[in-house]
């Protein structure tokens, strides 16, 4: 379904993405991990055609999407939704309008200029918001929502596109643990229920282990690991992040611990 062939992107002298190749057959949940500057974002942005690749091919159902130009490239963008770390919504517009932006590719400039949306489209947008549990926010300005809610609006916009592939660039990096879980659960549900492929850049290993069917590790622009989450041992993680023995993923983990000793002792201090 998705075939990435030696994709490279060079900024100045440095290769941000260096000869990346992999194949994804079914609509799985793929996580890309690696430290900052490893080329994860650059790769996703090339796939969505926000950035042009220096060389290589990305074939989706046999068609090289990196070679598309103008109108065709925009049509591809509409089939390949993208979710951003900073949500990238239009802050001054209401939530439902932001969701409707997902079908802009099918709208003429004149329709956009006068803000004309058909009743069916509006109802569809509201249904998607309902599915994500934020329908009551529809008339509010996007900027008035919390980060977690804004990211769900961004997911709703992606769903409005009815895409085959959803790319998520650090979707939970600016969210608190609770909202992060809601967003990741939503993405997983879309992956399982709708059968849409999800490719997410993640920077917490526990998230990658918990949600992904497959993990790709990148370092300095190259793929250095490609396997299942259980193959992702601490040793492998150290290699991906270029870290030494002092690296301990629990130190920065955002997972909520299962044991309740801390709660107990906190309760005790309150009671005494």
């Amino acid at each position, binding site marked *: 379904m998705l075939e990435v062939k030696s994709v490279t992107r060079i900024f100045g002298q440095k290769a941000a993405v260096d000869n990346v190749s992999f194949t994804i057959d079914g609509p799985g949940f793929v996580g890309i991990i690696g430290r900052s500057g490893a080329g994860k974002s650059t790769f996703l942005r090339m796939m969505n055609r926000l950035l042009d690749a220096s060389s290589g091919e990305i074939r989706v159902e046999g068609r090289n999407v990196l070679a598309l130009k103008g109108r065709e490239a925009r049509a591809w963008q509409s089939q390949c939704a993208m979710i*951003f770390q900073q*949500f990238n919504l*239009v*802050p*001054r517009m209401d939530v439902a309008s932001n969701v409707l*932006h997902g079908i*802009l590719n099918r709208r003429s400039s004149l329709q956009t200029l006068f803000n004309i949306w058909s009743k069916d489209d509006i109802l569809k947008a509201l249904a998607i918001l309902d599915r994500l549990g934020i329908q009551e926010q529809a008339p509010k300005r996007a900027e008035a929502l919390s980060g977690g809610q804004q990211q769900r609006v*961004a997911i709703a*916009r992606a769903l409005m596109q009815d895409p085959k592939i959803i790319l998520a660039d650090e979707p939970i990096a600016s969210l608190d643990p609770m909202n992060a879980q809601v967003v990741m659960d939503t993405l997983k549900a879309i992956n399982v229920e709708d059968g849409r492929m999800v490719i997410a850049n993640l920077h917490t290993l526990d998230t990658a282990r918990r949600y992904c069917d497959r993990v790709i590790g990148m370092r300095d622009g190259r793929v250095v690991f490609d396997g299942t989450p259980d193959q992702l041992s601490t040793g492998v993680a150290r290699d991906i992040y270029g870290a030494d023995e002092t690296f301990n993923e629990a130190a920065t983990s955002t997972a909520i611990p299962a044991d309740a000793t801390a709660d107990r002792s906190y309760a005790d201090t309150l009671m005494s």
Partner: protein
Amino acid sequence: MVDIAYGPGPDRKPEGGSTITTSEAYLEMVRRRRLYSGIILALFIALMVAGFQLAQSRNAGGFLNGLPQIFAFPSEVISEAWEKRTNIPGLFLQFLPSLMETVNIAAVSTLIGGFTAALLALLATRGLARWPRLTPLFRRMMDLTRSIPEIVIALMLIFILGGGPVPAMIAISLHTAGALGKLFSEVAENADVKPVEGLTSVGASWLQRMWLGVIPQVAPNWLSYLMLRFEINVRASAILGFVGSGGIGYDLKLAMQWGAGKYDQVVAIFLLLFLTIIVIDQVTDHFRTRLVKGDRKARA
């Protein structure tokens, strides 16, 4: 399975950064900066003094000798107008239609110029431009229309098209497009690109990205500049009346050329213009504050 390509090692810390050498180096830099600003100040004062002396020597009658005469003409005008002060309310009514013409010229050219400016600004802004390679072209276009004074364009157009409000309108619109385009572009440059990027990712066209991603962000600032420009254009439109574009400027020219005898009209026209500018200033100021404050309220 795991194939590690070792990148460059972690950055090494700079060696031997002792505090004594850095503080001495910093003090040395401060001394050098002070010396430079002292030299520049001395140079500036010398240039100003020399310039004033040259200007004084070139002036036909001498600046200081001519100074008392500056007040002779206004006092003549005002004393005559004071004698005929009962005429002034009637003259207000008489000149109201030409004032309307002047304000209309300004309004239409602000609208046309503003619309052109918006388009040029978006095309000339780095990061937003439809054709990034053509941004210098659109920038030079704005520079060109801005650099030619309205009165020059108007004089040329009056020569070609004959007198009347249309040449003035075209002249002011052209100048407005260039002047506002530059300001609009500066505002758009500071606009947040995240919404634009989000819209790009869904496959929106350039017009859709600008209309939904940029315009809502820049609208308050753009409108504020547009209103300021309207006020400037009222003055420009009045001045263009002098060269034959109609409106209140033309009446003023006739009254002034007549010399003594019509000074009540001159004063009436000046008062009318003055009042108009004050009214426009107050009204636009009110709306501009509301634009900015209303914005703050919505955000809170």
